């Protein structure tokens, strides 16, 4: 399924998405600044494909995902979504009421399979609730549909009357996936869906996600920090750093030939499970800056081994350096950066 330049129709397009949180101080809660959690993020996701959104904690990847689902009101930018009916709608300015008919088309899989399921609801209630809310009133019909979805995710329909505590982490994550798929969404946002699971169970859930994508022609936005998992499951990858998009490209290209020094540093830092390959001694100096107090110029320049004078003053725009490949680095063309995953 890996492809260079895809021709599938675009399902979701972000244009200059921004989400700022005000910093308030004092008795009158005056706004004294803002945390630029997501600052000018643009990318496209095509139908039936998976976009991986990677970055370190606090880089804004989860905030981006939440803005897309409109669990948050973005501060600016456009979220263009292609509906099932074939219209392109900008989700950003819509009110809650206007969003309601669109909600079934985009669903979310959560990170924590323990915290995201109500312990007082049975499996039938959990998976059946989205159906009930969206007009499937007949209990018999709901039971049938829930049974079908449970079979789809590899759970036995006989378990329908049990409570979440009776299931293991991997099975609970399957329940979460079943709930997300109950309404046949077009876009599924998966926020770190395997990072809370045991290593021996992760592969089961990854296989299920791949299998479901094939069978139901799903489109995923896959938020993760584990680069090996992302490489395995995603067609395209977008890398974020302190609220900014630094690079987006087809997975294979990005891993083999990173164009942004941060992407290269991220890859060099991943511990490889092969004792013959040692991780680079070239480690990144310093720490991630705070999005409330970002450095001038390029966000990455204080830690970048390739920074020049221009990087300190001028913010590099996200630009297309080859078809489908966007990088925000002044020196993208001249740098020869090492990647990983050569066969």
């Amino acid at each position, binding site marked *: 399924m890996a492809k260079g330049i895809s021709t599938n129709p675009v399902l979701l397009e972000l244009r200059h998405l921004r989400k700022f949180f005000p910093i308030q101080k004092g008795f009158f809660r005056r706004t004294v600044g803002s945390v630029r959690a997501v600052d000018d993020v643009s990318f496209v996701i095509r139908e039936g494909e998976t976009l991986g959104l990677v970055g370190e904690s606090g880089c804004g990847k989860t905030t981006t995902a939440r803005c897309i689902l409109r669990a948050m009101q973005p501060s600016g930018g456009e979220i263009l979504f292609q509906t099932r009916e074939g219209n392109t709608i900008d989700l950003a300015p819509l009110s809650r009421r206007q969003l309601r008919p669109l909600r079934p088309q985009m669903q979310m899989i959560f990170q924590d399979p323990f915290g995201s399921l109500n312990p007082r609801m049975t499996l039938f209630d959990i998976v059946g609730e989205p159906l009930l809310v969206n007009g499937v009133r007949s209990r018999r019909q709901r039971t049938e549909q829930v049974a079908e979805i449970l079979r789809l995710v590899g759970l036995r329909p006989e378990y329908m009357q049990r409570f979440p505590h009776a299931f293991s982490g991997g099975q609970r994550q399957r329940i979460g996936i079943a709930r997300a798929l109950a309404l046949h969404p077009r876009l599924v946002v998966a926020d770190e869906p395997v990072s809370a699971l045991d290593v021996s169970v992760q592969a089961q859930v990854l296989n299920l996600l791949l*299998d479901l994508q094939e069978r139901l022609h799903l489109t995923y936005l896959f938020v993760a920090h584990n680069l*090996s998992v992302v*490489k395995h499951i995603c067609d395209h990858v977008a890398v974020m750093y302190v609220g900014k998009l630094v690079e987006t490209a087809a997975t294979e290209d990005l891993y083999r030939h990173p164009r942004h020094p941060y992407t290269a540093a991220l890859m060099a*830092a991943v511990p490889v499970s*092969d004792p013959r390959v040692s991780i680079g001694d070239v480690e990144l100096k310093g720490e991630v800056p705070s999005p409330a107090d970002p450095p001038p110029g390029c966000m990455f320049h204080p830690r970048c081994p390739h920074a020049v004078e221009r990087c300190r003053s001028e913010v590099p725009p996200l630009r297309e350096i080859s078809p489908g490949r966007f990088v925000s680095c002044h020196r993208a063309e001249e740098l020869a950066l090492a990647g990983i995953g050569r066969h």
Partner: protein
Amino acid sequence: MKPEPLLSVRDLKAHFPLDEGLVRAVDGVSFEVFPGQVLGIVGESGCGKSVAMKAVLQIIDPPGRIVGGEILLAGRDGGCAVDIAKLKPESESMRRIRGAEIALIPQEPMSSFSPVHTVGAQIIEAIQMHQTVDKRRARRMAAELLQAVGVPMAEQRIDAYSWQLSGGLRQRAIIAMGLSCNPRLLIADEPTTAIDVTTQAQILNLLRRLQRQRNMAIIFITHDLGVIAQMASYVVVMYLGRVMEQGAVNDIFLQPQHPYTKALLRSIPDVKSTPHAKLPIISGSIPHPFNRPEGCPFHPRCDSFMAGKCDREIPELLPVGEDHFASCLLFSGAGAKAATGSKVRKGAS
């Protein structure tokens, strides 16, 4: 000639008697740590890796306690060994070992520091606990330690509170505290799970450098096979309170023998694996501690399961190569019988 082990754990058992039943968190674990060696202990949740380490420090949370086995710590300068398992948790001799001989880097740097005392005050306290130095000298030592672990502006940061430091700096401060009394053995319990990859790379490099400089032994506990491959020279693989396999890092990763190790290594996606290909999986999930399977703990999920054997007999740890051991009934045939007697293991260099 092999050097004497610094720490040798033999048939350690730590159980938790709960109202619902007995949890055998650690159930017959043996391994050895040699001076200057990095021993990696890998395992998934509930495998007993953390409880085993808490046993070594006698800090198991009640109602858990050590019910059997030995934890022998070699004496300094050829002195006689102490059996930690026989010491009382609150005894004077145990307190002399904790921090001074064996130090711990806990998992969560946030909750390990007191938020109402400065980082420096806590490191100074640790120093004065084990060494007779005055406060001024202790403070200077603390500042030097912070500098050694790469905390910038150590002179100022010594008066900072833990919540004023970033995750990476906090982890460095914890390491400085662990090193404060020059321990012979450092136990690092998932020291990098709570931090980001680029910071993780810094911390791993720091630990490796310190280990080389001070010729200190480290027990490195993690569930991340990548980190183990990069850090350890000898690896112990645990599952449900038992050792499944142990061997030199190259043997474990390149020639794994136990079906669990093999399956685990196959199931993790690698940056080199084919994208979108189905991953080989381990069926089922880790059993609840109350429903521990009979016989080999891994048998319900094992693809080499032998009916009538694996569900009855508990396999012993047997040699499968040089310095390489596995506890699987596949290796307990007639040929391996002879080796059953020589059960004591010798670690790698």
